[in-house]
């Protein structure tokens, strides 16, 4: 996203606060008009996201039991979550995942974007579309494909073992499964992030490159001093999306669970834990508390990423 590199109009006041303004009535009317444009989105947003979130908060302070019905329990569910070893286990796991997978994926995406931008590639549009393609694949399809690829006896891993006489580790075993999932997530989103960076790179003014040429700067210096700083905003955004995605990790482990039931347990990620509590256990209240907690953690980390990303700008 090139947004944070865009021109001067981007300020809290939004469009044109500095121009000599018309009489207040017109400004007021325009203020209402601003709301008018935003309202359709907000109205649906309220129904579709805000209401369920509020309802979740409400659920999280109650407890409904198969025997005994519904009762108000205040912050008990939260206390229970904070003392729940399974919750912490899942949280640690996604934190580990985040810290390892996200940088790797973003670095690959960045490298690919730089390569595309460098005009030193042949057939660059072919690369662009095909590296993006995995993002378009629905989860149910990805499950089939990766199930085959990771199969140790009849799948690709197994075939490689036989063909090359190796004994590759079982990607669906307890020790390797997180890596296997990291691989799938990277595969899915490298193209998506690559495009975000590529687009940001495309906006860089050629004047800067001309200046660098005159200075006799080499490729790496150009990358370091011009390109990277120019897309810092995009890097931050991609980082934040990835943080949110990592903390919400659910689809990929869920898909692999039938293939690796002993490597992926019901509390593998916080989102899976919340899901199983809710759907298999009908513990909607506790599930809601876990979800709210995870939402808070995600927001905090995302904010930290944004702050640190933008601090370097200043």
């Amino acid at each position, binding site marked *: 996203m090139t*947004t944070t590199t*865009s021109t001067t109009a981007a300020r809290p006041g939004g469009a044109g606060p500095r121009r000599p303004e018309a009489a207040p009535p017109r400004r007021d009317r325009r203020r209402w008009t601003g*709301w*008018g444009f*935003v309202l359709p989105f907000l109205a649906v947003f309220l129904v579709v996201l805000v209401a369920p979130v509020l309802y979740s908060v409400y659920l999280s302070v109650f407890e409904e039991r198969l025997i005994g019905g519904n009762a108000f329990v205040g912050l008990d569910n939260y206390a229970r979550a904070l003392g729940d070893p399974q919750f912490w286990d899942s949280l640690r796991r996604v934190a580990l995942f985040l810290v390892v997978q996200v940088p790797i994926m973003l670095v690959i995406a960045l490298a690919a974007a730089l*390569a595309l931008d460098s005009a030193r590639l042949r057939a660059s549009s072919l690369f662009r579309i095909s590296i993006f393609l995995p993002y378009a694949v629905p989860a149910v399809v990805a499950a089939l494909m990766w199930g085959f690829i990771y199969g140790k006896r009849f799948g690709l891993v197994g075939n490689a073992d036989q063909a090359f006489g190796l004994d590759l580790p079982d990607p669906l075993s307890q020790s390797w499964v997180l890596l296997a999932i990291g691989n799938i997530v990277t595969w899915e989103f490298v*193209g998506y992030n690559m495009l975000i960076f590529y687009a940001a790179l495309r906006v860089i003014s050629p004047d800067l490159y001309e200046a660098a040429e005159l200075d006799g700067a080499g490729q790496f210096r150009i990358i370091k001093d011009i390109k990277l700083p120019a897309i810092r905003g995009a890097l931050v955004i991609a980082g934040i999306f990835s943080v949110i995605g990592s903390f919400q990790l659910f689809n990929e482990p869920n898909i692999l669970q039938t293939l690796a039931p002993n490597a992926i347990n019901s509390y593998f990620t916080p989102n899976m834990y*919340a899901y199983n509590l809710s759907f298999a256990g009908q513990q909607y209240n506790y599930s809601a508390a876990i979800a709210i907690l995870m939402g808070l953690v995600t927001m905090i980390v995302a904010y930290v990423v944004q702050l640190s990303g933008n601090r370097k700008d200043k």
Partner: protein
Amino acid sequence: MSTLTGSPVATPDDATPSRRRAPKDPARRRTAGAPREKRSTLLTVVMAVLLIYSVLPLFWLLINSTKTQEALFDSFGLWFSGDFVLFDNIAQVFTYGDGEFVRWFGNTVLYVVVGAGGATLLATLAGYGLAKFDFPGKKAVFAVVLGAVAIPGTALAVPTFLMFSQLGLTNTPWAIILPSLISPFGLYLIWTYAIDSVPNEILEAARMDGSSELRTFFTISLRLLSPGLITVLLFTMVATWNNYFLPLIMLSDSTWYPLTVGLNQWNAQSTTVGGEPIYNLVITGSFLTIIPIVVAFLFLQKYWQSGLTAGGVKA
């Protein structure tokens, strides 16, 4: 819902004073690096590795679409088996279960057209409003949108279900379309794009002429916003096309299933007592599912690329 529908956090006021200006003339924009840099074979090879990595599972899908149910179990996964039955498989996919695949395909198209189309419209209106109008509570709007997205969607599924159930919306297309109308990433994209691509001078001129804001939006601004709009359209199309989790929960009538849920049901047949396994149809069906998205991307590629370069191209 764990795909990154994305929500921007860096509000535009975080932008640094820019050292960059939009190029004066798009034609003058050159690619980076020395203009006549020779093509690097090494780089191409490295990228080719990335390409193979990306495409390999899809290659598997294509190859296995050509096999019969039995051959799937007997043959090597990455190459063809004896019989090439791709067209048979495709025909079967369309006719199995009284043509339920076609129905599901139609459903998915409906959800995408209304859902993604609606999402794009809402995001564009809202993004434009945020970009071009000054009103209190703007930052709050943004923070609230982000906050709601940070909460894991799977945990919101049951509350949403209960709510929709009360409203009588479960098991109807609305249960799928309504949630897909919200694209926070789209909102952010249009917001920042609009700031640069719709010059305030034009808006002022239109106002002087007496045009209402809405009219100005539809006649002037929309055209200026079109690259960004197409981008949001594309991303929301992929998201709604691949929407799986919420439809799974909301629908209990298979006539309204989208393709993702339908294929999953076909897949589950092989694990039921007395079920007829149709892996070959699942794989071929999956392959067919991906094609429309690819086509859409190829077709809209040029808009999409320029759409992401906010501020790069002025209409």
